[in-house]
């Protein structure tokens, strides 16, 4: 199994080279968004407003972290289940989203759009939240602070351990 070091923001050709089953160590900037933030991002797009961050080549992590203890960057921060984001995802992919990080199944429409746009879906280990939080080096809330744990955060990660589950050709590691 290949182990690939990847740094965000990524280009389409880097994405097209990733294969389902690849082990990935991701570094760089990753934005967080889960259910409520997705609703707002889509609302912003539909109303022609700017998004709170540049979606072009971006990596999005589906997470609602636990509060940080004093002196810590962030609290425990494992992935949430991704299918709940499916209704919103195709529109974000059409706006340049290249990497999605979560856990669990995606629907056909998401996978079709990933193929068209050249994007990948990477799985973080659900429940390994304390371990993952140690790979998050910086954290800043950049939008929707009223959403609390669901606010959009800008993270800087170092060697986040991930597995490529769905690649840009539509190959899906969950369908063995």
């Amino acid at each position, binding site marked *: 199994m290949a182990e690939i070091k990847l740094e965000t923001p990524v280009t389409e050709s880097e994405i097209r080279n990733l294969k389902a089953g690849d082990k990935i160590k991701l570094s760089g900037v990753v934005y967080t968004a889960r259910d409520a933030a997705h609703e707002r991002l889509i609302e912003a797009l539909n109303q022609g407003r700017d998004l709170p961050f540049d979606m072009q080549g971006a990596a999005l992590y589906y997470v*609602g972290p*636990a509060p940080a203890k004093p002196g810590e960057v962030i609290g425990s921060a494992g992935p949430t289940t991704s299918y709940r984001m499916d209704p919103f995802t195709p529109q974000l992919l059409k706006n340049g989203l290249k990497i999605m990080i979560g*856990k*669990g199944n995606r629907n056909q429409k998401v996978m079709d759009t990933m193929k068209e746009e050249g994007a990948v879906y990477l799985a973080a*280990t659900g*429940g390994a*939240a304390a*371990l993952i939080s140690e790979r998050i080096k910086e954290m800043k809330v950049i939008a929707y602070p009223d959403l609390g744990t669901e606010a959009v955060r800008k993270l800087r990660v170092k060697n986040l351990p991930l597995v490529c589950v769905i690649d840009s050709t539509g190959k899906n590691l969950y369908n063995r």
Partner: protein
Amino acid sequence: MRTIEAEEITKAVARLCKETNYNLGQDVIRAYKESLAAEESEVAQEILEQLIQNAEIAQEKEVPICQDTGMAVVFLELGQDVNIVGDDVTAAVNEGVKKGYQEGYLRKSVVSDPLIERKNTEDNTPAVIHTTIVPGDELKITVAPKGFGSENMSQMKMFNPTAGAEKVKDFVVQVVEEAGPNPCPPIVVGVGVGGTLDKAALLAKKSLLRDIGEHNSDPKYKSLEEEILNAVNETGVGPQGLGGKTTALAVNIEEYPTHIAGLPVVVNINCHVARHKTVVL
């Protein structure tokens, strides 16, 4: 009649909320290690290694094992010779949840109105409280924070009374397969059989309070638990749904008498962070 101060309940609940979220039971860690030894796939091994390491980090740093620190499900077994003074029991439990989640830097995941407003209550209250009145003069408190990645994958079915164990087994396996990677396998599968619709759901939830390796005391149900566990593990879903031999760490069945016309079955899925802790006051 023995007197228990409501404040003691609050303190105990607060402590249990923190402890369950920081310290994974040794039974679960032992099950991870056994699974790790049995797995042949590299991905499955790596995931189980991460889970073992994660539990160590959480315990050492006193941080949550999982960021989803759950909705607090609290079971009370209240001795009928206990007199609680100072506050009402429900308020005391909720005060404990609030204190535990705030002091413990646990995530607040509860919204007040489930449908229209969905506003975060900011202190993870209210808890879901199940109270049983039992003989004696003690109060047994169990806190079992429930994450929703797995809760969402739970299902129920009202079977015909003649359906039999094989159909129930098929249903459990089907629920696990449909859930696939979503509930964070390796999972613990709670199965409630009998009673009424609500009773079966409570039985399923209650069965998740067992330590891994603890079986139904009835040998017939124990052997059914083992049979379903084997079937579930033969699906190959594996750790995190990425393939392997360990889809579930345990299948727990709790049964109750039911009506001649029915056979309610509820499958309540728990993730690998199978959290629950108990104190007796």
